[in-house]
C-alpha cells in the first residue's frame, strides 16, 4: 500500500473511532482502597534511578497488600512519568487530585516539584512525601503537608563537616551541581564550617549530569583541600570527579550525600577504572540492603523478592528504591495510627499523626528509633566504600542531629 497523507489520515481516524467505541466501561473497584499517587522520572537524566525505584515500590506495595494492606485496605499505586520536569509533575498531581478516586498520599520526584506544588496543597491538601531532602521542606508551618523521609540536606552536610572535624581535617571544598538540589545546603554548610573552625578553600559548580570534569578537578587540585564534599548528583559526575582526581594523584578524601552513594554505580565505575572510589565516604540515613540481617523489614522484602523473581533477583535493592520505600513506610504508619485512633483519614489528621511519631521502630530501615522533628527524621551514619569487598560499610555510629 502506498503510504501518503490520505491513508495516514484515514488510519488515524479509524484508530480514534475504535478507541472510542471499543473502550469498555471503567471497572470500578468494589472494595475501598488507598490510592498512592505520584510522579517518577521514567525518562530524562534520572531515568535509571526513577525506573528502578518505581519497580521496587510496586513490589513493596504488592508485598504490603499480600500482608493485608494498610489498616485492612489494599493499596494501589498510580505513578506517571515526569521526565524530571517539575511542571509535568505538577500536571500529574492535578490529574491525580481531580480523579474520582482521590489519592491519600502523593509522592513528588524533585525539589522543584515540592516548591511548585506548595500553593496547590493549600487548596487541595494531601499528604505529600517525595525524593527531596530540601531543607525548606522541613517546615510544618510554611509547608503543612510535606515531609522528608530522612535528614535534610543541611543536616547531612553538618554530619559530614563534623566527621571532617573529628578526623582532624581543616581544609574542605564543596563541589555541587548547578541545580536547586545542589545549591540547597551550601550556604548553611559554609556557616557550619566557620563555626567548627574549618576553612572552606574552594567551591566548584558543575552540570548535574554529563559534565566534563577535567577543568573542575584541576581547580580542586590547586585549592588542595583535605576533604571534598560532593552534593547534588545521582548517577553521574561524582564518580568521574573522584576517578579523575585519583588520576591526578590527589590524596584528597571525598565525601558525599545520600543520592550520590549508590553501590551499583560505584561497582560499575570500579569495574571500569579500578579502585579509584576506595575510601569514598558519605552520610546515609538508612541501612544498605545487604545489612538485611539487622533489619526485619529488609528481610521480609528480600523473601518476597526471592519468591517472586527466584534467581533473577540479585539479592540487592538500590538506595534509590529504599528512599521511596521508607517514605511510604512513614505514610503507612501515619494512616494506621490515624485509623487506629478512630479519626477520619484527612490530610490534616495524617500530618498530625506523622508529627506524633516518636520513638517508632522502623523495622531496621534506620538504626535508632524514628522520631519526626519538624517534618524530617534527623539521623544517619557515615558509610565508607571499599573497592575490594564492593560494599559501603558504616564507619560511625548512628548520629542524631
Amino acid at each position: 500500500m502506498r503510504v501518503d497523507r490520505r491513508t495516514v489520515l484515514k488510519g488515524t481516524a479509524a484508530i480514534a473511532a475504535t478507541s472510542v467505541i471499543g473502550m469498555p466501561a471503567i471497572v470500578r473497584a468494589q472494595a475501598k482502597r488507598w490510592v498512592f499517587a505520584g510522579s517518577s522520572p521514567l525518562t530524562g537524566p534520572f531515568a535509571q534511578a526513577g525506573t528502578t525505584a518505581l519497580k521496587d515500590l510496586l513490589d513493596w506495595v504488592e508485598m504490603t497488600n499480600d500482608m493485608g494492606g494498610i489498616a485492612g485496605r489494599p493499596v494501589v499505586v498510580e505513578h506517571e512519568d515526569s521526565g524530571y520536569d517539575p511542571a509535568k509533575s505538577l500536571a500529574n498531581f492535578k490529574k491525580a487530585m481531580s480523579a474520582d478516586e482521590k489519592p491519600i498520599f502523593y509522592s513528588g520526584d524533585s525539589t522543584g516539584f515540592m516548591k511548585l506544588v506548595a500553593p496547590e496543597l493549600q487548596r487541595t491538601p494531601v499528604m505529600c512525601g517525595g525524593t527531596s531532602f530540601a531543607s525548606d521542606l522541613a517546615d510544618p508551618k510554611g509547608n503543612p503537608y510535606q515531609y522528608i523521609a530522612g535528614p535534610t540536606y543541611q543536616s547531612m552536610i553538618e554530619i559530614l563537616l563534623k566527621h571532617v572535624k573529628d578526623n582532624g581535617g581543616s581544609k574542605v571544598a564543596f563541589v555541587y551541581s548547578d541545580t536547586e538540589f545542589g545549591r540547597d545546603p551550601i550556604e548553611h554548610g559554609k556557616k557550619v564550617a566557620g563555626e567548627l573552625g574549618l576553612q572552606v578553600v574552594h567551591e566548584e559548580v558543575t552540570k548535574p549530569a554529563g559534565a566534563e570534569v577535567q577543568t573542575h578537578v584541576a581547580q580542586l587540585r590547586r585549592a588542595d583541600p583535605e576533604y571534598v564534599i560532593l552534593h547534588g548528583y545521582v548517577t553521574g559526575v561524582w564518580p568521574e570527579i573522584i576517578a579523575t582526581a585519583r588520576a591526578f594523584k590527589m590524596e584528597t578524601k571525598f565525601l558525599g550525600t545520600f543520592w550520590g552513594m549508590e553501590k551499583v554505580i560505584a561497582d560499575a565505575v570500579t569495574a571500569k577504572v579500578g579502585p579509584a572510589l576506595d575510601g569514598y565516604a558519605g552520610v546515609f540515613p538508612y541501612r544498605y540492603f545487604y545489612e538485611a540481617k539487622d533489619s526485619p523489614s529488609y528481610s521480609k522484602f528480600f523473601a518476597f523478592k526471592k519468591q517472586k523473581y527466584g534467581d533473577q533477583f540479585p539479592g540487592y535493592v538500590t538506595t534509590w528504591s529504599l528512599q521511596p520505600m521508607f517514605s511510604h513506610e512513614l505514610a503507612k504508619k501515619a494512616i494506621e495510627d490515624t485509623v487506629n485512633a478512630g479519626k477520619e483519614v484527612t490530610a490534616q489528621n495524617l500530618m498530625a499523626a506523622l508529627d506524633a511519631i516518636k520513638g517508632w521502630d522502623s523495622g531496621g530501615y534506620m538504626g535508632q528509633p524514628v522520631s519526626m522533628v519538624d517534618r524530617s527524621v534527623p539521623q544517619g551514619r557515615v558509610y565508607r566504600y571499599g573497592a575490594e569487598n564492593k560494599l559501603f560499610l558504616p564507619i560511625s555510629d548512628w548520629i542524631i542531629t
Partner: protein
Amino acid sequence: MDIMFVVEDSITGLMTGGVYALIAVGIVLVFRATKVFNFAHGAVLMIGAYFYYTITGMLDVAGLGTWAIYVLGLPLTMIVAALFGAVIERVLMRPMIGQHPFPMIMVTIGLISVLEGVAAIAWTTNAKYPPALVGLSIDFVGGMAINRQMLASFLIAGAVFVIITILFLKSKAGVAIRATASDQSTAYAMGINVPRVFMTTWMVAAATAALAGILLAPLNSLTPSLSQVGLSVIAVVILGGLDSVIGALLAAFIVGWLEAMANHFLGGDFKEIVPYAVVLAIILIRPYGLLGTRDVERV
C-alpha cells in the same frame, strides 16, 4: 604560578574543542548540502555511542582481545552509524526535498524525542560503561597536567577532521557536495545525483558523530541524555558560520577555550553561558559567523 594554571586550563579547553570540531563538522556538512540545520545531531551521536557499546560487547563475548576494539570495533561502529544516517536521510529527509527548510528542521527536532525513546527501550536507561580507547591517566609535562584520554580524543578527532576536509575539497563526492550546496537545480542539470549527495553527507555526519560519541561516552557514563551535547555544539556551528568547515574548526577551539576560561575565572555556572554570550556578540558584528558565506539574495 597563576599563569601556569591558566595555560593548563587553556590546553584542556582546546582539547575539548577538538571533539567539538568533530561534532560540528557533521552539522556543517549536512547544512551545506541540504540547507537543514540538524538539531538531532546530538541524538545521532548518542545512538552511535550505543552502537559502539553493543559492538564492543559482542567482540568481548567473541573472546577477542582489546586489539579488536581498535581494529574491528571502531570501523564497524562507524559503518553501522553511517548506514543509520542513510536510513534517516532516505526515510525522513528524502520525501521533503525541495520544501522550505523550516518543516525539515522541525523533523529533526521530532527525531530527538524518537531517538532518545528508542535508546531507552533498546538499551534501557541504566548507565552503560563502554570501553575507553585510552585508559584514564594523567601525565605531568613541565608541571602541567595532560589527560591522556583527552589528548588521544583530540588527536583522533583532529585526524578525522583533516581527512574529511581533504576529501571535501579534493574528492569527486566532495565536489558534488559543494556543487549542490552552491546551486541545487544547476547541480541537477549538470548530472549530479543530488539525492545521493544528500545521503552521502548524512552518512558522513552520522559516522563522525558516532566517533565523537565513542570519544565522549567513556569520559562519563553512557545514557540517552548524552544527546544533550548537541546543544553545546550549536554555539560552535553558528560562531564558525553555518556552512564553513574551517570556520567550525576555528570556532570549536574558541568555544572550548572560552568554556575552560569561564570555569577558571567565573566558576562552573558560567561555563555554558559565556560561549553563548560571546557568540551573540560576535554575530552582531559578523552576521554570518566568522567564515560563513554571505547569502546573496536577488529580488
